[in-house]
C-alpha cells in the first residue's frame, strides 16, 4: 500500500501549482499500479517523452507548461522527431512537423537540457554509482544501470517527465538492491579472444542476451580485458531492443561485478548458459533480413549516437576516399560541435557522409523511399528496428564492412570466424 508523505500529498493537491500537482499524481498512480510502498528522491532524469507519436503527447507537455511545471532535477532530452541542429532533411508533413516542434519547445520550456541525444552518458550526464535516477530510452537505461551503476527502471513516456518534475520516483524494481543481483550466468569464455575483442561481436552478443534473458538480470563471464565503453554501449542497446534487459553485469568489468560471486549475490545462478559458436552464428543470421544479396542503398551507423571516438574510427576507415552510397552518421550536437570546430565535419560531408543530429533514421522519416531498398548497419538496434520503421531490409556487418560497402556501392565482406 502506497504511503505518501505530508509534503507529497500537499504537492498533489496543488501547493506548488497545477503542473507539479499533475506530475506528482502521475508518479503516485504509477507507484500504486506497480505496488511500490513509497516514493524516493531521484538525482536526475533523462527524458524520452519528447519524441512525437501523435498530438496527445504535445497537448500533455503543453498542459504541464501551462501549469507552471519545471523539472526539479537535471533532465537531459533524448532524440526528437526534428533536427534543430540541421543536417539531414526530414520528410514530415506540415501538421506533424508543427506539433513535433511544439512538443520539443514545451520540454525545453520546463527546463530540460536540449541535449537531444540517446547517449546522454557520453554528453556529460553521468550519475554517480548507487544514486537513484529516473531515465527513459532503453539503451540509456541499461547503460546507466550497468556501466555507471546508478539505479533506474525503464521509465516510459509521461512517467519520465513526471518524475523529473516531482523529483521523485516509485520505489520498486531496479531501485532496490535485492533486484539488482544476477540470476542468470552467461559464459562466453569459450569463444576466441579475437572475437571477444572485436566491435562487431557486441551487438550480436546483446541480441542473444536480449532474447535469452528477457528482463532477468544477467552476469556475463569471460569478457575481462575485452570491453571498451563503446562496446558496452553497443551490447546494452542490442540487449534492450531485442529483450527487456534493464541491467546486466560483466564480471571483472562493470561496477557492481568486481567478481562473479559478488554479481550473483554469493548464490549459485538460477540458470547458466554457455554461448556456443552455433548460437552466435544463428543470432548473427537473424540480425540481417536482406538475404543473399550484395545490394546496398545506404549505410546507417550510430544507434546509440556515435561518440567522438567512433567518429575518429570512421575517419580512419574512410581514409579520404569518397562514398558511392550515402552513409548516415547519427550523433548528437555534443559530437557535431567539436567536429565542426576542428574542420572535420566538412571533410566528412565532402566524402559523402550525411550527419543526422538530434534525431535518428529509425524514429523519423529521413531515408528516401526506394523499392526493395537495403540498409547496411553495424548497430544491433538499427538492425532490430529499421525493417519495421523504415521499410528497408537490413544487412548487418562491422564498421569496416559498412565503410567498404559504402565506398564500393555493393556489399563487401571481410573474412571473420564467429567462434
Amino acid at each position, binding site marked *: 500500500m502506497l504511503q505518501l508523505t505530508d509534503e507529497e500529498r500537499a504537492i498533489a493537491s496543488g501547493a506548488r501549482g497545477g503542473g507539479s500537482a499533475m506530475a506528482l499524481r502521475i508518479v503516485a498512480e504509477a507507484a500504486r499500479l506497480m505496488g511500490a510502498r513509497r516514493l524516493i528522491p531521484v538525482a536526475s532524469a533523462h527524458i524520452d517523452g519528447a519524441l512525437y507519436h501523435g498530438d496527445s503527447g504535445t*497537448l500533455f507537455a503543453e498542459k504541464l507548461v501551462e501549469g507552471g511545471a519545471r523539472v526539479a532535477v537535471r533532465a537531459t532530452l533524448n532524440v526528437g522527431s526534428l533536427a534543430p541542429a540541421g543536417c539531414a532533411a526530414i520528410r514530415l508533413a506540415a501538421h506533424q512537423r508543427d506539433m513535433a516542434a511544439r512538443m520539443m519547445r514545451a520540454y525545453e520550456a520546463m527546463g530540460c537540457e536540449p541535449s537531444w541525444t540517446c547517449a546522454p552518458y557520453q554528453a556529460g550526464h553521468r550519475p554517480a554509482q548507487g544514486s537513484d535516477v529516473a531515465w527513459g530510452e532503453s539503451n540509456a537505461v541499461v547503460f546507466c544501470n550497468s556501466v555507471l551503476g546508478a539505479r533506474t527502471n525503464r521509465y516510459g513516456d509521461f512517467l519520465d517527465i513526471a518524475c523529473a518534475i516531482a523529483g521523485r520516483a516509485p520505489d520498486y524494481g531496479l531501485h532496490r538492491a535485492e533486484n539488482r543481483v544476477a540470476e542468470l550466468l552467461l559464459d562466453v569464455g569459450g569463444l576466441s579472444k579475437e572475437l571477444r575483442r572485436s566491435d562487431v561481436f557486441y551487438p550480436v552478443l546483446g541480441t542473444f542476451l536480449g532474447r535469452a534473458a528477457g528482463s532477468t538480470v544477467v552476469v556475463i563471464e569471460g569478457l575481462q580485458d575485452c570491453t571498451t565503453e563503446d562496446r558496452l554501449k553497443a551490447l546494452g542497446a542490442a540487449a534492450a531492443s531485442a529483450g527487456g534487459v534493464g541491467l546486466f553485469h560483466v564480471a571483472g568489468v562493470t561496477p557492481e561485478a568486481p567478481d562473479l560471486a559478488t554479481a550473483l549475490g554469493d548464490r549459485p545462478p538460477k540458470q547458466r548458459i554457455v554461448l556456443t559458436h552455433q548460437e552466435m552464428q544463428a543470432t548473427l543470421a537473424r540480425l540481417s533480413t536482406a538475404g543473399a544479396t550484395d545490394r546496398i542503398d545506404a549505410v546507417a551507423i550510430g544507434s546509440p549516437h556515435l561518440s567522438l571516438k567512433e567518429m575518429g574510427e570512421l575517419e580512419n576507415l574512410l581514409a579520404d576516399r569518397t562514398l558511392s552510397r550515402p552513409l548516415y552518421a547519427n550523433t548528437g550536437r555534443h559530437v557535431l560541435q567539436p567536429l565542426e570546430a576542428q574542420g572535420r565535419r566538412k571533410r566528412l560531408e565532402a566524402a559523402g557522409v550525411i550527419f543526422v543530429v538530434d534525431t535518428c533514421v529509425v524514429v523519423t522519416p529521413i531515408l528516401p523511399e526506394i523499392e526493395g531498398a537495403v540498409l547496411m548497419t553495424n548497430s544491433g538496434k538499427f538492425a532490430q528496428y529499421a525493417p519495421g520503421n523504415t521499410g528497408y531490409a537490413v544487412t548487418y556487418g562491422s564498421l569496416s564492412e559498412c565503410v567498404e560497402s559504402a565506398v564500393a556501392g555493393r556489399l563487401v565482406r571481410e573474412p571473420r570466424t564467429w567462434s
Partner: protein
Amino acid sequence: MVLKGEILIPGGNVKGECLALSAAISFWGGVDPRTGMIIDARHPERDRNIAGTVLALPGTIGSSSASAVLLELVHAGNAPAAILMDAPDAILLLGLVVAREMGWPTPPALRLPASQQAALAGKTLLISSDGNIAVQ
C-alpha cells in the same frame, strides 16, 4: 452471468462487444495509434480494430511507448470502451492515468484472469463502475 473484476482504473458504466485477444500484444508497433487497428504482422488478431470494444488482454509485451499509443487512441476517440487485463501493466495503464489528468473521457480498466477472458469473446458485456462484468 456476472463476473467480478478488480478495478485498476475506475470509470463509468460502459457496454461493448468483447474482443478477446488470443496472444499478448505490444501496443507500440502492434496497434496503429491513429486508428486502433492491430498492425502487428505476427499477431493472430491482426486487422481487427480495438476501438469501442471491451478489449481483453491475456498479456502485454512491455514497451515504454505503449502509454503514448493508448493516450493517442483516447484523444482521437479510438480507444477501447474498457480494458480487461490478466496482470496490470503499469506502463500501458499510465496512458489512462494521463488521459484522466487531461480531462478526457477515460475507459475503465479491470483485472480479469486470462482463463476467464476467452469465454467472453464476441459477447456483449456491460461493465459497471463497481467492477461487475455482466454478459448479455
